[in-house]
């Protein structure tokens, strides 16, 4: 928890936490001032950088718009299904690879190489397989989140303290008991870390697919706003989306007890 450690360290100095708050407020004020200056400067096309008041107004309009919530639910359902399918498969494959050195040597390199490949390029294939409806978006989201979850679970499985496994065996624990009492508790952090990473890429995969070809969802709404050059509305939707993604990520991160980007 570097951030928390650092905050406590600064707080140890005289008025440390006050200084941190002052820096944060100063940064926010500078950014707001720069934004407003850019908005009023006339250097950009009209409305490319709207004033924050306009963006705030667009946010308020969005907040009372029923259609927006319907599209939001569509996107959330797609992301949820993608995470369930891709995450479930990722955990199963990760457990298999992490539990067997042979399988890991045989197949893990392919996951390692395919993992960083941008999954959006598989969208034409997904459209062919699953059609132009929500299924192709769910499939792309599932494909996106499968790799980080599988690799994280496989790595986590290998990092289980052998002492814990020996303790389980010395108690003659059954395979189910070993899984429930030893493996899964010991792997809570890597699994949740993988889910956290997977969640982020599932959102990206699903919503990018929506921006490419869809008639529902937040990705579709963003493209609609872009098509009619309604920049305040587009900013408002991006803000809502970022806030939701960051909040969900933070929630999973808190449960996993991790706060920084994890290394691979």
């Amino acid at each position, binding site marked *: 928890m570097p951030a928390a450690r650092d905050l406590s360290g600064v707080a140890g100095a005289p008025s440390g936490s006050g200084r941190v708050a002052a820096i944060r407020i100063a940064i926010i004020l500078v950014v707001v001032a720069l934004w407003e200056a850019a908005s009023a400067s006339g250097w950009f096309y009209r409305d490319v950088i709207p004033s924050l008041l306009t963006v705030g107004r667009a946010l308020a309009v969005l907040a009372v718009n029923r259609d927006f919530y319907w599209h939001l639910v569509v996107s959330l359902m797609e992301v949820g299904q993608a995470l369930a399918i891709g995450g479930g498969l990722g955990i199963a494959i990760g457990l298999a690879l992490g539990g067997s050195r042979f399988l890991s040597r045989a197949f893990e390199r392919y996951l390692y190489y395919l993992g960083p490949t*941008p999954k959006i390029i598989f969208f034409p294939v997904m459209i062919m397989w699953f059609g132009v409806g929500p299924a192709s978006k769910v499939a792309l989201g599932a494909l996106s989140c499968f790799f980080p979850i599988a690799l994280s679970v496989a790595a986590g499985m290998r990092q289980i303290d052998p002492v814990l496994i020996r303790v389980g065996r010395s108690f003659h624990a059954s395979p189910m008991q070993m899984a429930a009492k030893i493996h899964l508790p010991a792997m809570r952090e890597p699994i949740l870390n993988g889910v956290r990473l997977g969640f982020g890429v599932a959102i990206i995969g699903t919503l990018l697919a929506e921006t490419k070809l869809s008639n529902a969802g937040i990705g579709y709404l963003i493209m609609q706003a872009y098509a009619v050059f309604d920049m305040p509305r587009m900013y408002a939707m991006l803000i809502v989306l970022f806030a939701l993604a960051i909040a969900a990520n933070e929630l999973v991160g808190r449960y996993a007890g991790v706060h*920084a980007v994890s290394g691979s």
Partner: protein
Amino acid sequence: MAAGERALGAAGAVAFGIAVIAAATAAVEGLLRIGLLNRYIVPLPSEVLASFPRIVVEENILAPFVVTCKECLYAMLLVAVFGILTGTLLHRFVALRAATETWVAALASAPIALMYPLFLVLFGRSATTVVAMGLIAGLPPAILKTVEGLGGTRRVLINVGRSFNLTAGQMFAKILLPAALPNIFVGLRLGLIFCLINIVGVEFMINFGGLGHVINELAERYDLPGTYAAIGFVILVSILFLILTERIERCLQPGT
């Protein structure tokens, strides 16, 4: 499985993996040929293989391949420069780090790729948009891992530096940076992944530039074998860059 592992060893496992993939590919080919799978949805693997030389000649795919590689390279160089600089700055000024580190971590989890319409408006349908998207996506992990690496330098190493009366610059170049390199490279590799996802993704979405553009074109022409083969080239780019970062890391840390 354990007996199999002992008998076959590492090379056997690799061969087993290749054999399984080859068998699966042959099975798909067979199912397509007997009509159990639809050839209009899944192309014949043999046709996909044959498409590699075809798209090299007819689509001149090496040019977009180079374009994507260049965009990735520029974005990664910018990520390395700005990421390490910002990370060093945050390490140096503790209060600034405490104030902003959670924001940078939040940015790492934000779906930045969805901002591409905004970048299109700002920079137009150009390589600048593609590189800028790659840069913004790649920065957060590079910054966070640089901070983590510099902050994790062993106290004894810092004390050794101080005992030699090293200047701040010498301390950074001789002690802090070498100690932080493994973490920095983890950050750069994560940054590369985010970078590549955004670069090819944006190329695909805006139908501009390198391999993403070619895949979009081939898909729109319903050239399925060509689309699959072009996807193979994107996988090749990601493998090339992963190997490149590993090589650079080994050069900078000969002991690893």
